[in-house]
């Protein structure tokens, strides 16, 4: 029943992670159980966006007047128990509850993910009931495009793709740029390995992203938008398609949005598996049907982007932050976070951590709070070694910096970057030289080959690391690696090559002893690297 809320709501996680652990079957059992018990007038079962603690999937959330209860690993038999004991009997099934539920959620602040557990991403009416497109409505009826940009500027929102460029400034540059047509692009080419924030947002709340794009289009004067999504995310693509269709039918997208003079059409472009396409000029080339190779900037896409026209490119999470800013005001958003990094940030917690999953925290929370309070620490009581942020462009943060606040400036000061939000935890079973090699291997094969420093430099750096991990390195190799770090950073054409040395530079900075142990003692402290022949001979 659209619009009508039943007193008891059962949200089954319908994100890719839970679906692959059997959430669809769980949902079917719940739906049938509710019908069989004659509870359908009181209980509503629906699919929802990522509920958070992905390690405990399939997840089911039951909410009603008496609060919220999150169930873990809900298999078919457990679903039947939830129906009979909780839904019919009114008693929570304590044995099935997520371990550490309270700790996991206590420090989180949900802005981008506030519809998780509340709306069904495949039914627009459930989203509208929770305020979707309210910001757009307000902007179109009461605000000029300049007012919208003013509100975004006031909020202090910065690009969530990783670089942290002020969003308001970017929008106003595109607004002022002259062109026959303008475009708005959503960069959903989430390529960092170990990052799944954008996937979760697109799967869980596509309307928030579409509304953010529509607001951006209204502000800068664009009539056409593109969402460039990774081909590896079929579920996100399907949900976006559904959302666009429903939004067009409801008059939030298409010609004469909400019967105003403003028109905005959104099309999808499916990526074809090239990491470099996350770089904005490469992404534009890919939308134009070309090989995804970057080009030198300036001119920036804001003045000459897609088909040579002024183009606004923002990341998924950036757009998803916009509707709340319009609805609740820039000042409200700016009250969250730190002096220079406002608002919240979504992180994907993964690796050697007890509670892997999707979290949203206010900027400035410390790394320790994120990893130990929310994430529940390292499994098996092993020691924490490093947290890797920003994927192949980021760095490893050692235990000595666990108390830094997580914001753009602080992360940069310790040699890492905010990045898009992937947060991989490593314990003493990870060899830091091997981790650096892993990322260089990634950059080496994802380098588009257009500029020499990146194409050849990543290969050389990888070869040096390969040698060291085989126990064949020399101390001179460390100096060579450091020289190459500088060379790539200073001379590569785009962000991929410029940031490719970061994993090496940061591990050299904090774990130099591991490099030296590989070289001088032929010893890998984590026991990951296999040393070749010479040792066997000795």
């Amino acid at each position, binding site marked *: 029943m659209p619009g009508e809320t039943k007193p008891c709501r059962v949200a089954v996680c319908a994100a*890719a*992670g839970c679906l*692959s*652990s059997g959430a669809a079957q769980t949902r079917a059992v719940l739906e049938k159980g509710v019908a069989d018990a004659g509870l359908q007038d009181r209980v509503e079962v629906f699919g929802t966006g990522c509920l958070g603690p*992905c*390690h405990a*999937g399939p997840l089911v959330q039951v909410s009603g007047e008496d609060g919220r209860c999150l169930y873990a690993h809900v298999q078919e038999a457990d679903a039947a128990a939830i129906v009979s004991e909780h839904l019919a009997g009114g008693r929570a099934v304590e044995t099935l509850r997520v371990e550490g539920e309270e700790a996991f959620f206590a420090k989180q602040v949900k802005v981008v993910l506030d519809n998780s557990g509340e709306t069904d991403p495949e039914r627009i009416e459930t989203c509208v009931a929770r305020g979707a497109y309210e910001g757009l409505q307000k902007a179109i009826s009461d605000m000029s495009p300049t007012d919208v940009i003013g509100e975004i500027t006031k909020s202090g929102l910065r690009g969530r793709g990783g670089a942290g460029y002020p969003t308001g400034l970017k929008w106003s540059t595109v607004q002022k740029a002259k062109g026959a047509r303008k475009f708005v692009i959503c960069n959903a080419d*989430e*390529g*960092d*390995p*170990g*990052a*799944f924030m954008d*996937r*979760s947002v697109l799967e869980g709340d596509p309307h928030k992203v579409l509304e953010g794009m529509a607001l951006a289009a209204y502000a800068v004067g664009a009539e056409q938008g593109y969402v460039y999504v990774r*081909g*590896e*995310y079929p579920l996100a693509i399907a949900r976006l398609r559904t959302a666009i269709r429903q939004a067009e039918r409801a008059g939030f997208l298409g010609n004469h949005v909400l019967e105003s003079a403003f028109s905005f059409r959104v099309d999808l*472009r*499916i*990526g*074809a*598996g*090239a*990491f470099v396409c996350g770089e904005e000029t490469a992404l534009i080339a*890919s*939308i*134009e*049907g*070309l*090989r*995804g190779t970057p080009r030198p900037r300036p001119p920036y896409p804001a003045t000459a982007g897609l*088909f040579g026209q002024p183009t606004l490119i923002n990341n998924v999470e950036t757009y998803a932050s916009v509707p709340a800013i319009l609805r609740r005001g820039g000042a409200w958003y700016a009250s969250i976070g730190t002096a220079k990094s406002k608002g919240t940030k979504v992180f*994907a917690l*993964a*690796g*050697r951590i007890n509670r*892997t*999953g999707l979290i949203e925290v206010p900027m400035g929370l410390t790394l320790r709070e994120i990893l130990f309070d929310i994430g529940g620490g390292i499994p098996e009581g092993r020691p924490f070694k490093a947290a*890797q942020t920003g*994927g192949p462009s980021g760095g490893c943060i050692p235990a000595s910096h666990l108390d830094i606040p997580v914001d753009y400036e602080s992360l940069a000061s310790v040699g890492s970057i905010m990045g898009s939000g*992937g947060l*991989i935890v*490593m314990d003493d079973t*990870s060899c830091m030289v091997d*981790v650096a090699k*892993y990322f260089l291997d*990634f950059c080496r094969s*994802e380098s*588009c080959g257009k500029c020499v420093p990146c194409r050849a430099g990543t290969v050389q750096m990888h070869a040096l690391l390969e040698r060291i991990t085989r126990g064949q390195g020399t101390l001179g190799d460390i100096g060579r690696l450091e020289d190459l770090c500088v060379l790539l950073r200073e001379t590569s054409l785009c962000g991929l090559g410029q940031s490719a040395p970061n994993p090496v530079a940061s591990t050299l900075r904090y774990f130099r002893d591991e490099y030296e142990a590989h070289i001088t003692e032929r010893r890998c402290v984590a026991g990951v690297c296999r040393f070749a022949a010479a040792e066997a001979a000795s």
Partner: protein
Amino acid sequence: MPTQATPAASVGPAGAPAPADKRLKMLDATVKKHQARSDALIEVLHHAQELYGYLDADVLLYVSRTLRVPASRVYGVATFYNFFTLKPSGEHTCVVCLGTACYVKGAGQVLDALESAHAVRAGETTSDGRLSLVTARCLGACGLAPAVVFDGEVAGRVAVAAALERTRQWTDGHAR
């Protein structure tokens, strides 16, 4: 590639891969939907691969003609992106995710074991055509690390033994 492929392309009308094939009509519909614009190249290749399973020279040439894009550019795009494959894949596909979370949790060992058990390298197909072993950069299923996709079905926390068992069912199920 283009010069070698020309004779093969003359088999069907306009280099059609297989005459009287419904798939070609479906591909034409996609081209039409995009008004045969050259910037739809990647979209059209996506659909072609969906229909045919892979992109052979005939298909590439056909796309080149219908979109009026030089064959060299079509080939350039098809080989640039990891998603497109120019060779047919095996009967079954096993994708090992090598994202950071999976790597930290031992996906490398799973891949090594699969490679040696089936005498195939990542990105290749076994000589009997039964199994294609593929790696992925990140499936975004990091909560389930290490993740492996068996014929489109994502499995989480896959141990070496489990991966070998699943794939051996495919490869050993038939008499050698």
